[in-house]
């Protein structure tokens, strides 16, 4: 499996490097957190909003931008196309589940993005030297764990919507609703702390939070140890949930596919 993966990754890396310019443009399409930062920044001119000062907004949204860039997924566009055009049948002949090819190309994209984002993050830090994060060995470990989980959740949930293309033609539209939910309740439009209490209580347990907001919250220093523990349990639950859902949908979908493909 490891050897197969390194082969897949090498191939994906080669492809990515060929489309460098296009990846940079795709990266620029992820500016929405910065737009929201500009809005909240000027709203907070008159004083902190729900405990967030201008500096807190800068810290929050810069990291949110980074998390969004590093968890970006697009697999549904490929999966939906390949299912509807039948291209998937070629991939099914490969001695490896197609999901691994998609994972490899996403990982290659992340490696490329990281290479651009690290210098940019340093520049951002020079421009805003006052940004602050609660960095301890524990929060840092949790941050990277939550970042990986966020990517897994975004990837697997989108993959599940993609699998729906076996049965319906509007899979991408359903995913658009899911994506809108993530922008709203995943902490892009506003940090979850700024929502009314009744909404926040529910949003804290919804998958959207763990697709973007949770890694940022971990190093924000606003979560109590109990919050961290409860959040981590909910995060693990959602990852497990989508793994199971993916396996179930995939096995059903494949049967459906061969039923009309053969």
């Amino acid at each position, binding site marked *: 499996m490891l050897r197969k993966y390194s082969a897949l990754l090498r191939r994906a890396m080669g492809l990515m490097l060929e489309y460098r310019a296009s990846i940079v443009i795709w990266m*620029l*399409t992820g500016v929405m957190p910065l*737009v929201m930062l*500009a809005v909240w920044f000027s709203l907070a001119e008159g004083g902190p909003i*729900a405990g967030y000062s201008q500096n807190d907004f800068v810290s929050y949204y810069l990291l949110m931008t980074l998390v969004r860039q590093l968890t970006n997924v697009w697999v549904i566009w490929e999966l939906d196309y390949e299912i509807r055009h039948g291209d998937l049948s070629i991939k099914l002949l490969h001695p490896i589940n197609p999901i691994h090819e998609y994972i490899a190309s996403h990982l290659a994209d992340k490696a490329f993005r990281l290479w651009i984002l690290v210098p940019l993050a340093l520049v951002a830090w020079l421009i805003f030297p006052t940004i602050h994060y609660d960095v301890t060995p524990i929060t840092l470990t949790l941050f990277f764990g939550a970042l990986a989980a966020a990517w897994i959740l975004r990837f697997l949930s989108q993959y599940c919507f993609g699998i729906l293309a076996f049965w319906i033609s509007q899979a991408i539209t359903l995913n658009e609703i899911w994506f809108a939910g993530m922008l709203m309740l995943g902490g892009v439009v*506003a940090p979850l702390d700024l*929502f009314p209490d009744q909404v926040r209580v529910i949003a804290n347990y919804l998958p959207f939070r763990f697709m973007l907001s949770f890694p940022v919250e971990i190093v924000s220093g606003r979560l109590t140890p109990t919050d961290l523990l409860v959040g981590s349990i909910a995060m693990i639950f959602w990852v497990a949930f989508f793994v199971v859902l993916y396996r179930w949908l995939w096995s059903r979908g494949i049967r459906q596919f061969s039923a009309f493909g053969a």
Partner: protein
Amino acid sequence: MRYLKLLTIFYKNSILKELEYRVNFLSNAFMSVFWLVWGIVGVSIFFLHRDTMGDWTYPEVLMVVGLFTFFTGVMESLLRPNVGAVIEQIRDGTFDFVLTKPVNAQFIASLRSIVIWRLVDVIIGIAVIVYALGQLHVTPTPTQIGFFLVMIASAVAIVYSIWLVMVSFAFWFVKIDNITELFYAFYEAGRYPVTIYRGVVRVLLTFIVPIAFITTFPASALLGRIDPTTTIIGFVFAIGSFIASNRFWNFALRYYSSASS
């Protein structure tokens, strides 16, 4: 006149084709309303914490949201379908047929198709603007309506110019879907009045990616927040972008190498 007649034929043709996909109407209408509600919820979060946004009250910001939806509809129904068509024509070389027609190529390339379903956004956008006016209890004066119409016309010209420039890029890059997505990413900033942005960002959104002219300024005109000078600047800016985009299109056209050569 001849061009108007051609446009009618083009649109009749596309509408007939579109009518075959009536399911799209339902899902498009649903998504239009969904994104509108999403936008209004987003704005409401700001107003949970503050009474104004860059000096704009809630109903005034709603008007900007209405214009945002209105222009989303304009772009999605009248402009975006043509970008897709041009890309395809450039890729398989059938763009030759566009060039050999005895009609201006820019006219055909940029206005050939229409997706009527997306006009839903235009309608609900207008509805939100009217609702916001009702909430404000203001009746715009004829002068304000005049300024508003001038600003809307300017905004349409600016939006058209932006899309023409994006289409022109297809002569070099062919695959330009990421360029249109990039524009939409910046267009997101147009959900809120431009006065909320500070410094460089505001300059960027006014003159470089002129989103302020699309959503904020027409709303300002209707609210009587705009002076005649700004209206004239907007109008001149629109004409300028139209001419510039036309130049750019002609320049890009020279790089078209037919598929066979």
